[in-house]
Every structure is written in C-alpha cells, then in structure tokens.
C-alpha cells in the first residue's frame, strides 16, 4: 500500500481500505441489501409465474367483473347473486367498516366508564371492574368472539323470541329492530338537523371569541340542543310526522319485516367492544392518573365544581396521554374484526375467502385484503394524528 488513503478526502480511493471507512461500508452494505432484495423479488416472481402457468391459472384483476353467484345476507348496499365479485368485495369492505365503527364507539364508551369506575374509591366497584378488565384482557379475542356467537345461537328460537314491547325481538337469528321508513318531508327534517349541527359549531366559535374578548360565557350546550334537536322536532310535527317504522311482525317460523342484525354481527360487535374496551379502560386509567393531584386541588382552589374540574382541567390534560395509545387500540379493533371469518360474519376477509375458493385468484384476493386494511389503517392514524395535534400542548 504505497498510496495514502484519506477517507472522504480528495485523494484517491483505496478499495482495500473500504471496510475501515464508515461511509464506504455503509454504501457497500446498502448496495448488498438492495441486491439481496432484488434477487429475492426476482426469485419469488419467477417462481410464481412458473407455478401459475403450471396450474393453468391466469393472473390479473379481471375476475372482479365476473358474476359472483353467491348470496350475502348481511349487506349495507344492493347486492344479489348476479352481482360481480367486485361488488361482493365492496359489500364485505362496508361490513368490516360497519363493525369497526360500531366497535370503536362502544369500546370507547365501555373503556371510559370502566376506567373511571376502576379509579373510584368505592372498594367493591373498583375490584369488580378490575377483575372483569383483567379477565377480558388476558383471554384471546378469538375465543371471546366464538363464545359470544355460541351464546347468540343458544338464544330462544323465533317462536319463543324475547320481545321488547312487541317492537323489537331477540332470538337465535339475531336482533330484529323496527326499520325507519322515510316519507315525503322527512328530507326537510334531516336537512334541518344538519343545519343545526353547522349552526351549533358556528355558535360555539362565536361564544369562544366573545368569552375571550369579554369574559362573558354563553350556554352553548343548550343552544346546540335547541338547534339540533328542538327545531327539527318542531318542524317534524309541523309537517305531519313524516317518519314511519316498519315493525317486525312475528310469524310462526320467522319474523317478517323490520331490520335484522345477524347474530354474527352482534357476537363480533360484543366481543370486539368488550375486549378493546378493557384495554381502553387501562389507557384511560393511566391517563387520568398521569394528571397530578395538584391540578385537582388548584381547580378546587379556584372554586370549580367537581364536574367542571373533570371537564375543563383533568380530561383535557389526560387526553394528551390517552389519544396516542387509543389510536393503536382502534387500529387493533379494526384488524381484529378480520377474525369474523371464524364465525362467518361476512366481512371483507370471509367474503374474500369465498371468492378465493370460487375463482382461485389467491394472489389477487389477498393483495386486495392487504390494500384495504393498509388504507384503513393509514386513514385512521391520519385522523387520530390530526386530532392529537389539535389537543396537544401548545408550548411557547
């Protein structure tokens, strides 16, 4: 080695010294990584092509336009057995979103209630809640989903349905609820509710500004109640109650009419919301505990009442701690809803499974699953990040 290698200098580059130069080593390592990944990808692609050709399968997403020829009884949009695979996927995706949204709402409620109750200084309540939380958290969610499903199936038969005022029924085919029928004029009422929501937001904005400027408060809650519920209610009666209900009617072997929630949906919803609710209760508990006791005492010293202390002092600070882990719980719930396939709730995975078995397009179906969940995850975390930023501590 006659030449003097100066790492990173303008002098020549000595290849024999490359391994002792950190930057050169980095470049070499990354090149190797890229090469390795490229080789792996080439290996997989070439194998897949050979395997598919040998099995006589075509690839591509054209099959989505073929007729599906199977029925889906749980659906939010029009669908029949003459619809296409693509439409079946849409039905499945909407079913996943349905159970995820329902689950997120109830899990949050359950979590907040259980979290606060577990902190209660009532000995009995806090112990009971703690026992429930620990048991629910430490048992696999799949077991709980099947358990609730078995319970739903063990309910009385249609003939002996449990009736709630002859308007709603509970039996082993699920829950039967009155279905709303919107008649002429109901559009006005719905529109008024929307207008009420927008007006309430505007009033709240104005009230905040006024309070900042003058210190005078304005009862936004009551105003909002009047705008969102009161005004539409008056108009509803004024235009002659344009809303009717299709009440399920009990026949000998089945129930006619109404809106049927399948036992699978109920089981999945219950299991996911209690399981995730138990986790959320721990997050809420930790969040509330993270606000130091001095804050409560300071609020008391200012003369705030207990409810106001919770709402204006404790919760806003606790939420900062609560929101980030809550986001991942919401994502977990959404992903766990894919376990629906075990009990046959027709979410995207179990519909996809049927399509996969019928069409044999494994690669395409599984890639659609993944794309769907990735998009859903990204959207949820984007929304929660936005919300988190909004409530984050503004530091000078």
């Amino acid at each position: 080695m006659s030449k003097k290698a100066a790492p990173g200098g303008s002098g020549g580059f000595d290849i024999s010294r490359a391994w002792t130069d950190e930057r050169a080593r980095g470049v070499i390592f990354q090149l190797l990584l890229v090469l390795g990944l490229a080789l792996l990808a080439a290996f997989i692609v070439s194998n897949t092509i050979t395997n598919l050709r040998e099995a006589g399968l075509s690839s591509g997403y054209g099959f989505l336009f073929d007729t599906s020829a199977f029925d889906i009884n749980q659906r939010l949009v029009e669908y029949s057995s003459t619809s296409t695979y693509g439409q079946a996927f849409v039905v499945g995706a909407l079913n996943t979103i349905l159970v995820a949204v329902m689950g997120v709402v109830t899990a949050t409620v359950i979590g907040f209630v259980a979290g606060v109750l577990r902190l209660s200084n009532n000995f009995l309540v806090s112990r009971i809640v703690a026992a429930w939380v620990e048991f629910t958290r430490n048992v696999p969610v799949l077991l709980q989903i099947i358990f609730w499903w078995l319970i739903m199936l063990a309910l009385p038969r249609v003939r002996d349905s449990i009736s709630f005022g002859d308007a709603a029924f509970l039996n082993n085919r699920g829950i039967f609820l009155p279905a709303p029928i919107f008649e002429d004029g109901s559009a006005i009422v719905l529109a008024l509710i929307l207008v009420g929501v927008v007006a309430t937001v505007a009033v709240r904005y104005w009230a905040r500004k006024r309070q900042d400027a003058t210190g005078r408060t304005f009862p936004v809650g009551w105003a909002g109640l009047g705008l969102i519920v009161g005004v539409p209610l008056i108009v509803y009666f004024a235009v002659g109650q344009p809303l009717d209900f299709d009440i399920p009617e009990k026949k000998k072997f089945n129930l006619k009419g109404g809106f049927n929630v399948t036992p699978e949906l109920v089981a999945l919803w219950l299991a996911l919301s209690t399981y995730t609710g138990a986790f959320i209760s721990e997050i809420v508990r930790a969040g509330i505990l993270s606000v130091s006791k001095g804050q409560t005492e300071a609020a008391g010293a200012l003369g705030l009442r207990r409810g106001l202390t919770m709402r204006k002092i404790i919760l806003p600070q606790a939420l900062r701690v609560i929101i980030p882990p809550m986001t991942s719980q919401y994502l977990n719930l959404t992903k766990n809803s894919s376990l629906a396939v075990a009990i046959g709730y027709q979410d995207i995975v179990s519909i996809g499974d049927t399509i996969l078995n019928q069409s044999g397009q494994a690669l395409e179906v599984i890639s659609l699953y993944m794309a769907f969940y990735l998009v859903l995850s990204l959207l949820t975390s984007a929304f929660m990040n936005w919300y988190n930023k909004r409530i984050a501590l503004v530091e000078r």
Partner: protein
Amino acid sequence: MTKYAFHRSRAEMLPERAPPLTSTGVIGWVRTNLFSSWLSAVLTVASIAVLALVLPGLIEWAFIDATLTGELGKDCPSEGACWAWLDQRITQFFYGFYPVESYWRVNVCLALLVPALAYMLFDKLPYARYGRWYSLAYPVIAAILLVGGLGLEVIRTDQFGGFMLNLIAGLVGIVLSLPIGILLALGRRSRMPIVRWFSVSFIEFIRGVPLITLLFVAIILLPLFLPPQVTLDQLIRVMIIITLFASAYMAEVIRGGLQAIPNGQYEAGQAMGLGYWQSMRLIILPQALKISIPGIVNTFIGLFKDTTLVIIIGLFDILGQARLLQTNPDWLGKVDYETFLLAALFFFVICFSMSRYSLNLEKRLDTTRR
C-alpha cells in the same frame, strides 16, 4: 415573658381521645369505601345486586349441579356444567394428536425449559457460564425431542396440537422476534437511507394488516412463491409468519426505548472510540431494552394470545380442540361453555402472570416521583 396576654401553658400532655366511632373499624371502613357519597352508595348497592345475581348461579352451574362422570354428552343433564369429558379429553387439550406413548417427550421438553428460562432471566445462578450455553442449545434439544430424529421416532408436525401448540408457537415467536425486532428498530433509526426505508416499510406494512391475512399468505401464497420441489412444513410457515408479525411490533416498542436514551449517551460512546455495534451493544441497547421491558412483555402477551388464530387455517390448538369437542356429535350442545372456560383459564393464568411481572418491573424501573 408576659408580653403575650393569651399565652397559656400546661404542664402535661392531654391524653389522646379515641377517634369518632364512625371513622374507624368496620363502620369507618364501610363508610369511606362503600358509602362515601350517594353515588358511591348507589354503585355499592348495584354491585351487590350484580354479585348476588351472578355468583350463586355461576357456582351452582359450575360446581353444585355439575356432572363429573359419564361417557357421553347425554349422560349430562341439561342444568349444570358438564365436566364428564375432562377425564377422556384433557390430554388432547394439552397434547393435541401427539402419540400417547410419546407424551413423555413433551413433558421432558417442558421440564428442560424451566432451567433454560431461568438462565436467561436471572444472572445470579450457579454455573451461569454453562447455563447460558445450555439456554442457547435448548431450542435444538427441544426440536429434536418434539419432532424426533437421532434415534427418536419422527412425529409429523400436523400431530402437534392443543395447548402445546400454542406454547411452541408462542415461545418460538417470542425468542426469535426479539433479535429481529432489535435489528428493525436500529434499522429504522439508521443513517443509511435504504436500510431505514426498508425497515420503515416492513414495520408499517406488517402493522397495517391483520395477522390472519399474513397467515393466509403463509398457507396459500408461500407455496406459489417457492419452487415446486420445495415444500415447507405448515407449522414452520406459521411460525415464520408469527415471528415476523411480532418482530414488527417489537421493533416499535424498542424504538420507543431507543428514543428515550439521551443523545449524550450516543456521543459518549463515540467519544470512547467505540464503533457503532460496540456502542450499541455496550451502552445504548442495555439501557433502551431495560426501559422497554414492559412493552416487550405486553407484545409477548399479545403474541401468545394471537397463536389461537391458527385454528382459522386448520391447525388444532387448544381452541381447535375445544371446537372439535363442541361439534362432536357425542357431546354436541353440552360442552360449549365448559371447554371454552378451560381454554380461557389456560390463557388467563399465563397472560395474567406475565402482565403482573411486567407491572412489577415497571414499578421497579420507574424512578420518577409523583
């Protein structure tokens, strides 16, 4: 000192007066813990009502009215729990379809696991030097014992099942996901853009999709990806996927730990003249891993519970055994809750003790004062 007119003095201490009756003893405890306010009183009454409604019925069902012996489901009357199956089926709940004459191999495996775990978790044990090597060699010993070879009869992995399958899949995932997770976490914080990009996309992809879709990849797609002459055992495919899945979550937990280490520590490592791996091994990781232990244990618990998902792709773990018995014509409709209760207890005992351990560690490691 008579400047202060109101100054009084007493020569001896007054005797202590007993606290009011309502604030001590049973009455005091009940008052402060059960009836401190009207809301609390309402909650207490409600809880007692719930307990009175649920507990006696549950105990009656599980113990008093229960049937303990019998050959078939019809031996069980409909009220009360049916435990008659325990006798003939409990071994399947634990060992799956593993040949009965080879149960000892699983038992030996479990017995050998105890010292292997002990040498991993605790430093101050006799013969620690050799113990470490033993811990490292344990997976090989266990694999030979369970699968066979070296003179032992070979047992196909599709005969694995029951809780043993959950334990194996969980332990393999736990052991392998930690190092992979550490590498991914370091990769995510690396200064090399391609390494960072690779780690980020791997982690976010795995965390963005449900485990069940990844298991479908292992079962349906992996044979497509490999040359036709290569066949990979189904259990191994599942273990690979579970490990990769857990390592993505592990990576995020460890990244949190790495981020909590102040920059001064990294700089100190450089100032000492340590290379990247040296400073990671000797300075950064010991601290980062210590902070992330609670998160790591939580990931373990999640991973262990997730091993039940294998029933969806047709392996019979403990949940699968329970479903088998529930759908068995001899027992149909008789053992739905009993079998699940047993399976739930298995998981509860293990997961709950792990979570207690992590809570305990969290408390010990928490040096902040409130």
